[in-house]
Structures are given as structure tokens and as C-alpha cells.
């Protein structure tokens, strides 16, 4: 019997993107844009906390978290900051541009875990984008939580994301939103200070609350400490980690942080699982 080279090839290999079309793009700040994407083939439906690998034709791929509620039709919303060649190509993509999408990958914000409890959201800078789907879920299912408290920090008022939505949330009676900026000019009449300063006075019960924290790693560490100082147990705090990713599949090795693969075991982690790893420099 002659040797056969291979068994049935899979329908689509996991490194092959699904084509998507840019429907629109809108600037959030000077260097951050939100893309609305529509599938040209199979839909990709990420849950809050998950990410997709977005491919800019001929340039490369980067992991980007979803920043909208899951849409079964496959419509995607991704808020992307211009920090390199690929992200630059993505945010420069005009409507009708075809890009590639692979996903969804990773772990989710544990909204089930937070049912029946106070939900606390702490967002720093671009960290608000991966948390927005959690806020959407909370507002759409408000009965599931005893209270919803959102704290947002940004560098300057001009760098606040989703300003219009923040103003809407601020106007609601069923969510407590506080916003602060690190630096401001004379035309800002809101709060000035670092987001960790909002934690001591935020209206939630530390004994029973669940917190989702997202932003630069140092910001998450300090925010977690502020939450712990208020009496929250480590097991009730969740963060979203990030490392270099080349595949999203657990095959390329790049996203390792000690014993964990962030694309597979994260990006959302419970703080007690991550705390010691985050303390080791250059791990």
C-alpha cells in the first residue's frame, strides 16, 4: 500500500486569517482609533476579555482585545493605538479595506463570577477598551450586580477614550462613574490625579466585590494594591496581561510568562495567580 502524505486537511488552518472588511473608523484620541469590522466569510465572535489577531495585509499581525459586546453576526469593534507598523496600518485602513482576523482567543472577564456582587471596574489609558464590553454587559444586565462602579484614568483629558459614552454613563443612576486625568490644563474642570486615588472612596463593599482591572502593568499593580488596601481579597481581583504574541495558539512560545502562556491561560488572570510572577523582574 503506498504511503499517503497526510490525512484530511482541516477546513482552515488556525494561522490563516478570515477576511474582514473595514466598515468605518473613527478617532478616539490623537493616536487611537476605533475600527468597525464586518466579516466577508466566517464570523468571529469574541467574548468580553478575549482578543483577536488582526492582520494588516502585507504588514503583519497584532493582538487586539475586543471593545464591544459579542455580536453573533461577526461584527467586530476594535480600539487600536498607533504604536508600530502594524497598528499604524490598521488605524490607517479606510472603509472597504480588507484585513484579516483570527480568533477569538484567550480567557474572559469572569462576569458569571461577579453575579450577585458589586462589580468594580478600574481602567487606565487604553485599558478602558478591553473593559468596555464588561461595562456593556453590566449595564445591559444590571440586575445581575448589586452595584456597578467604574473608575477611569487617562493621561490628559484629550486622551480619554469614549468620551461620549463616559458622559452617558455618568448621567445614569445605576452606575457610579469617576474619571480622573494625570495632567490637565485650565480648561479641564474635572478631577486631576492618578486613578488609584479613586479607589479609597469608591462606593463598593470590598468584602464581596469583584474587580476587573486593565491598563499598563504598573497601573494594574498599583490599582490592585489600592483595592487590597481597602480589604478586597486577592482572589476577587482580575487583571489583563499582555506579552509579545506571534500566533495566539500556544505554538510560538513568545507570550510565556513563567509557567503560563498568556494567549491560552490569559489574558484575564486572577490577581493571586499573577502577583508573584509580576514581582520578578524581566521574567
Amino acid at each position: 500500500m503506498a504511503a499517503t502524505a497526510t490525512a484530511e486537511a482541516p477546513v482552515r488552518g488556525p494561522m490563516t486569517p478570515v477576511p474582514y472588511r473595514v466598515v468605518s473608523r473613527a478617532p478616539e484620541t490623537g493616536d487611537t482609533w476605533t475600527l468597525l469590522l464586518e466579516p466577508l466569510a466566517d464570523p468571529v465572535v469574541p467574548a468580553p476579555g478575549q482578543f483577536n489577531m488582526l492582520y494588516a495585509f502585507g504588514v503583519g499581525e497584532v493582538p487586539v482585545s475586543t471593545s464591544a459586546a459579542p455580536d453573533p453576526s461577526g461584527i467586530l469593534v476594535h480600539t487600536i493605538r498607533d504604536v508600530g507598523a502594524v497598528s499604524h496600518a490598521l488605524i490607517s485602513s479606510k472603509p472597504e479595506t480588507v484585513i484579516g482576523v483570527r480568533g477569538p482567543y484567550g480567557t474572559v472577564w469572569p462576569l458569571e463570577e461577579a453575579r450577585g456582587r458589586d462589580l468594580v471596574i478600574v481602567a487606565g489609558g487604553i485599558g478602558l477598551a478591553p473593559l468596555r464590553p464588561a461595562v456593556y454587559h453590566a449595564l445591559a444586565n444590571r440586575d445581575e450586580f448589586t452595584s456597578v462602579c467604574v473608575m477611569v484614568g487617562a493621561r490628559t483629558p484629550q486622551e480619554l477614550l469614549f468620551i461620549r459614552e463616559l458622559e452617558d454613563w455618568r448621567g445614569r443612576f445605576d452606575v457610579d462613574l469617576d474619571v480622573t486625568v494625570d495632567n490637565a490644563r485650565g480648561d479641564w474642570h474635572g478631577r486631576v490625579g492618578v486613578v488609584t486615588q479613586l479607589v479609597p472612596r469608591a462606593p463598593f463593599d470590598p468584602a464581596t466585590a469583584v474587580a476587573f482591572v486593565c491598563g499598563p502593568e504598573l497601573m494594574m499593580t498599583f490599582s490592585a494594591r489600592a483595592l487590597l488596601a481597602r480589604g478586597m481579597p486577592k482572589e476577587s481581583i482580575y487583571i489583563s496581561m499582555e506579552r509579545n504574541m506571534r500566533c495566539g495558539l500556544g505554538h510560538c512560545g513568545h507570550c510565556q510568562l513563567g509557567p503560563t502562556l498568556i494567549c491560552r491561560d490569559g489574558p484575564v488572570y486572577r490577581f493571586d495567580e499573577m502577583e508573584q510572577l509580576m514581582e520578578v523582574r524581566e521574567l
Partner: protein
Amino acid sequence: MKAIPDVHEAHLTHPAPTVIDLDGLHALVGVLRDRGYCVVGPTRRDDAIVYEEIASADELPVGWTEVQEAATYRLERRDDEARFGYPVGPHSWKRWLLPARVRLWQARRADNGRTRFVEEPPPERPFAFLGVRPCDLHAIAVQDRVFLEGAFVERDYAARREGAFLVAVNCGTPGGTCFCASMGTGPRAESGYDLALTELVGEHHRFVVEAGTERGEEVLGDLMAQPATTEDVDEALRVTHEAVALMGRHVESFDLRDLLARNVEHPRFSATAERCLSCGNCTLVCPTCFCTSVDDVNVLHDGGAERWRRWDSCYSQEYSYIHGGSVRPSSRARYRQWLTHKFGTWVDQFGTSGCVGCGRCITWCPVGIDVAEELASIRATDGEVDHANN
């Protein structure tokens, strides 16, 4: 030192081993080629024994052996005509299952504006690997765990692996840097092969053959194999029994994962990093190192694009690059990453050790960094902390 089991207590895995002679070995290569396999086996090139496609058993390194030590590799003539009288050279089978550079797909914009991603077809011919050492068999299994047994299957690896025919060769001549016995991966192949050979050199130069699969049995059926006698079996067992005592290195492999997890700030990492060149040789020659990266390129002449997958190494600066910097800028951090991953966190990530004791990293490190020595040193000074560099 582990106790060497009494040779009379050991037995071959297969209940009915057979024997072939040198003609049989020739025939084996021929049969595999006739069945459409690309036969890859050890051969001499550039003063090393490497794995290349071979057309006949004549191309095997007849009567050659390797002398290996830390930062040392050379070939020497044996005083017999053994076909497999050496351990492992710089190549491993990942060269064929996970090639250094492979195209994954091409993206084309069709006339109607639609974009199609055309995946690369698998290689035309399946591979038959002749001369897979037990350590390397385990290495293949370790990579199978990564690429085939996770949530996602690596398409190219699966295609190459699926049809691959493995002819293992048990070890009679371990090398100066070998420690498969410490890692429980050799010198005898227990499973994971289609055929396993034990070479018996001497007056009657022959091979004891065990079939590990139906496919192996079938190929064996074409080879005029004779049933193995008790003497054949005893001699085969003695070969690998004696090989255990000839291992060049020994590693206390007990509890390595926990040892390394609690010694993340050990001073040994900075000390050794002073010698480490971050050249990445160890990751190139290691049969289990699997890290890759992708190159997304434009194809200028037709407006298309391609994605290529290539080997990468945790020793490179850009490996851990995010947010305008590398997470592991120092060579200490990168050396620590490699060692602790290989022997420690690999267990957390994939449920097995990443090391199979082949010794290649010791042989091919230009400054002779020796993982056996490294691990022994950390074990001997368990708990020491590097206050200056952490």
C-alpha cells in the same frame, strides 16, 4: 547514579522481535523509497553527521563516530563498520517536521476584489526518518504535545507528522554530553516508533528489529527478516544496558520543576550569563525548542502577500518586545528564561519536561555552558538569592 537494571530482567517491548542483516538494511531504505517516502537519515557532511535525504544505506556514516564534549564536536573513525555508531549531531528531526522556514499561505486579491488566503499544500512525499534516537523519539512526542494536543492543531506540523514513518535506532554509543538515562528517555526506545533497530556489530553484523505499529509490521514483511534468537535478544539488551554506564553526563531530574520555580532569583543565572553569548545555538540544536515567528511580506509583482513561519529564539532581543522595549533586555534574563522553561515551566505549560537529555546544547554551546552542571549547581545551593541583580 541510578541503579542499572539486571540485563536478564529487561526485555524487549515487542513480543516477537526479528533480525535483518546489512542487506536487509539496504532493502529497508529501498522499500521505503518504493513506497513513496522521502527517506531522511544520518550522513556525513561538513565534518558532521547530519540528517539529510538519502537514496541508499551506503550514504550512512559507515564506521564513523562522534566525539562530543562541552563546546566540542568532531568525527573520528571507529574500528568497526557500524552504521549507527554515534549519538546525535547538530540536526534534529524538527528540521523536517518544523522546518526553519516554511510558507503558511499566500493571500491574493482576485479581480472581483475578494481576498483569498491560499494555504500551502503539504510536502509531496511523506517522510521516513531512519535512525531516530530514543531521545529524539521523545523529543518528537514533546513537540506533538505542543502542536497536536493543545486547543489548536498546527496545520503544517500535523501534515508532516501524520504520514511520517519512524525507524528508531537504539543507542550503543552514547556521547560525552548525553544524559538520556537521567531524563528517562533512553538509551532504549520503548514506544512511538514504526520500527526499532538495535545494531549488533561484530562477526555477524546484524540488526534486531522490533515493530511498533501495523505499518511497521507491513514494511518489515518486505524485508526477509528472520526471527530473533535468544542470543540476539540478549545481545541487543546488553548493548543498551552498557550504554547506560557510558553516558557522558548525569542530571538529578527529580523535582526539577519545583527546584527551578523556587530559584528564579538564583545567582547562578547572572554568573553563567557572563559567559553566555545569547547566540541561540542551544535553541537551534535542541530537538524540542519550538519557538517560531512569522514574517508577513508583500509580493510586489502581483500585489499579493504571504505569511512565512520561521524559527525564532528566546535569546533574541526582540523576542519579548512590547510597548517600545524588550521585557528581557539582559542576557541573564534570557538565559534564565531558556533554562527554567526547558526544565521547569515546560511542565506547567505542557505536562512534560522539555529536555530529553540529548546533550546537543552542551556540545554546541560555543562557550561550553553545561546544563547538567548548571542544574547541579542550583540544586547544591538551593535557595540562594542574587541580591545585586534582581
